[in-house]
């Protein structure tokens, strides 16, 4: 049976919106005949590893996720037509790891962290490749993941939405504290008038150069796995259908990187020109039921308190299912479950005690003390009353 490669859908005139997916598509198309594999446009929530690209081999029921794992799987279990003559050397491994750890943060800054690029290019691109209602959940989680990868570069000011929110909160707090504030019209410095990408241009360019200086010295010709990955990252760096193209301008504008630009354009002509990348859809995962389940699961994962636990349990379920598919018996374990259960027990107890107290409180606004007029019974009418009570057969408590 044919291998199935699950990848992100196409965007920016590239076969995929994700660098590793582009690399995996290019690698398979160069080493394996079309008959041996099938490309499927997908999203992380449709595959059990929650990571794209993912390669599924129906003959061994194995999922391999991530570019390195796919390379490894293909070299260990090659499909019949697989042919990769390039030899692997220590420097190839080092270069692969370098690309995988240093390029995603750059792409994250350019396409994901920057609010302008995100809202005008990247997000619409995701909306085009995802079926409704997934564009409401998946792009924001991809953005969050990419932002986390770029966190260590300290460039959060590109995310002007978050910055603006922070500024407004601070202003509100200082107004509330009674500080006299400068009127907004006087407060605008020239720096404020600049777009953050311009204000940070030198720093951003330096970040890009730090990485590209290493990439330009790599021997890209010698290993096809490395070549495909470098193309995946470079092609996304050179995307210029965005309003703030600092990254594309750095790659294209600097004389030293001419070789890289030439390589990326040549590779694109060689591998992708003239033939459409044939992406099919995942029928089961994109049925109405499949979409609803994927959407609801993503929503539940975002609920505070419950979401984290749900996410962990869902991961356990998926893994168990995946292993059982391969015929592996999964053992149960529950040390952390004990802690979670204890926590949940304490929380439930607290809620129970709270409800109990709440129920015992008088209704809101009710008077605290109530005097009732003594009820008029026959007993309070003295001897005559007692006599009458006896007549009517009333058992009177006053006696």
């Amino acid at each position: 049976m044919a291998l199935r490669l699950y990848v992100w859908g196409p965007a920016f005139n590239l076969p995929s919106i994700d660098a590793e997916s582009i690399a995996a598509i290019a690698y398979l198309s160069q080493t394996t005949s079309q008959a041996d594999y099938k490309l499927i446009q997908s999203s992380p929530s449709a595959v059990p590893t929650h990571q794209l690209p993912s390669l599924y081999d129906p003959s061994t029921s194995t999922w391999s996720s991530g570019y390195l794992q796919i390379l490894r799987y293909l070299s260990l279990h090659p499909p019949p037509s697989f042919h990769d003559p390039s030899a692997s050397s220590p420097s190839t491994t080092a270069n692969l790891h370098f690309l995988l750890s240093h390029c995603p943060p750059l792409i994250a800054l350019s396409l994901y962290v920057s609010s302008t690029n995100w809202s005008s290019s990247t997000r619409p691109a995701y909306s085009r490749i995802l079926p409704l209602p997934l564009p409401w959940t998946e792009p924001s989680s991809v953005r969050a993941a990419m932002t986390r990868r770029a966190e260590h570069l300290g460039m959060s000011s590109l995310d002007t939405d978050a910055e603006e929110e922070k500024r407004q909160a601070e202003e509100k707090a200082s107004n509330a504290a009674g500080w006299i504030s400068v009127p907004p019209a006087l407060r605008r410095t020239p720096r404020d008038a600049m777009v953050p990408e311009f204000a940070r241009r030198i720093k951003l360019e330096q970040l890009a150069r730090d990485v590209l200086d290493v990439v330009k010295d790599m021997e890209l010709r010698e290993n096809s796995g490395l070549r495909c990955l470098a193309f995946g990252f470079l092609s996304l760096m050179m995307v210029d259908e965005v309003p703030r193209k600092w990254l594309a301008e750095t790659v294209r504008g600097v004389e030293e990187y001419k070789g890289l630009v030439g390589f990326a354009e040549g590779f694109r002509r060689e591998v992708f020109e003239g033939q459409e990348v044939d992406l099919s859809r995942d029928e089961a995962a994109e049925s109405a039921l499949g979409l609803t389940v994927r959407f609801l699961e993503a929503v539940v994962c975002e609920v505070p308190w419950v979401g984290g636990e749900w996410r962990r349990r869902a991961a356990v379920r998926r893994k168990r299912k995946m292993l059982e598919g391969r015929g592996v018996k999964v053992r149960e374990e529950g040390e952390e479950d004990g802690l979670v259960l204890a926590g949940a027990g304490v929380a439930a107890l607290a809620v129970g005690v709270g409800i109990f107290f709440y129920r015992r409180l008088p209704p809101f606004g009710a008077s605290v003390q109530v005097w009732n007029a003594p009820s008029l019974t026959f007993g309070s009418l003295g001897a005559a009353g007692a006599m009458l009570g006896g007549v009517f057969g009333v058992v009177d408590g006053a006696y």
Partner: protein
Amino acid sequence: MASTGTPTSSSPWGSLQIPRPIQQLFNRFPLVTYNANNLPARTQALTSSNLPTLHVFSTDEDALEGLPSFNPTCLKWQTLLRLTKTPHRILPSTNHASPTGALPFLLPPQSTSSSTKPIPASLLSAYATKHGAIPLPSSSSATKEETYLSLLTPIRNAFLYALYLDPKYSSLLDRLYIHPSSSSTLVRKTLRYQLRSAAAASILQSRSLHPDSGREQIDGEAVFAEAQEALEALAGVLNEREGWFFGNERPGEFDAAVFGYAHLILSFMDEEKGLGRVLREVGEGAIVGHWKRVKIEAGWDI
């Protein structure tokens, strides 16, 4: 001008009279005032040394003898200071003591007139260059070193996975990081849970997955296979030219970083399977040979 006059409305509590019995009760406090405690005896020794102090994860006994730390990053910098013969001493510490929130950091001697600001790990290399007797090797291949430095990420991930997430090493984790912190079962359990989720989050994040997805989301086999490839690549570099990495004439920062992991894996992980076995076998023991050379160079003949 901001006016900070007296508050116009007096506090609603000002006019409130305190009930007699409560006032009497509070008048009885404090019942006894104790004298201030003396500082613990060891603080004298801890603060009055004229050697710079490197704070690392270690035990009291090991620190006295300057033995290797049991944390890979701490061990890397400790080794670098020893390789450059920078005078220093070791003090066991925790992350809470560090100004950056992470160990190691170096505290210059308090007696000197120069700056006594703590030096975080990121500036230790410059410190060693300035104060060390032996200079660091001038790297002729900086880009190469930078490229190979990313091979340490998969090794780090596999080390984290083995130590924190593999139940096989949970007793080791307890001995190194958890039991020294507290003797209460509940605190230990919580600490273990926190350390484990932090390790899982760190691995998940390097694979672009959500950090809350937990241990089961990590494909242990893949983490391990990546580390194996990285170790093979490192061994390949060592086998190209005998001696130190990248043909340097002296061991440098990269050698110290590799030693940091190699030493811990060799001393704590057995040779039957897993990381311990791979590290011993790759490149016909190239990494073990490197480990021995660094150990001699750093003056540890353990």
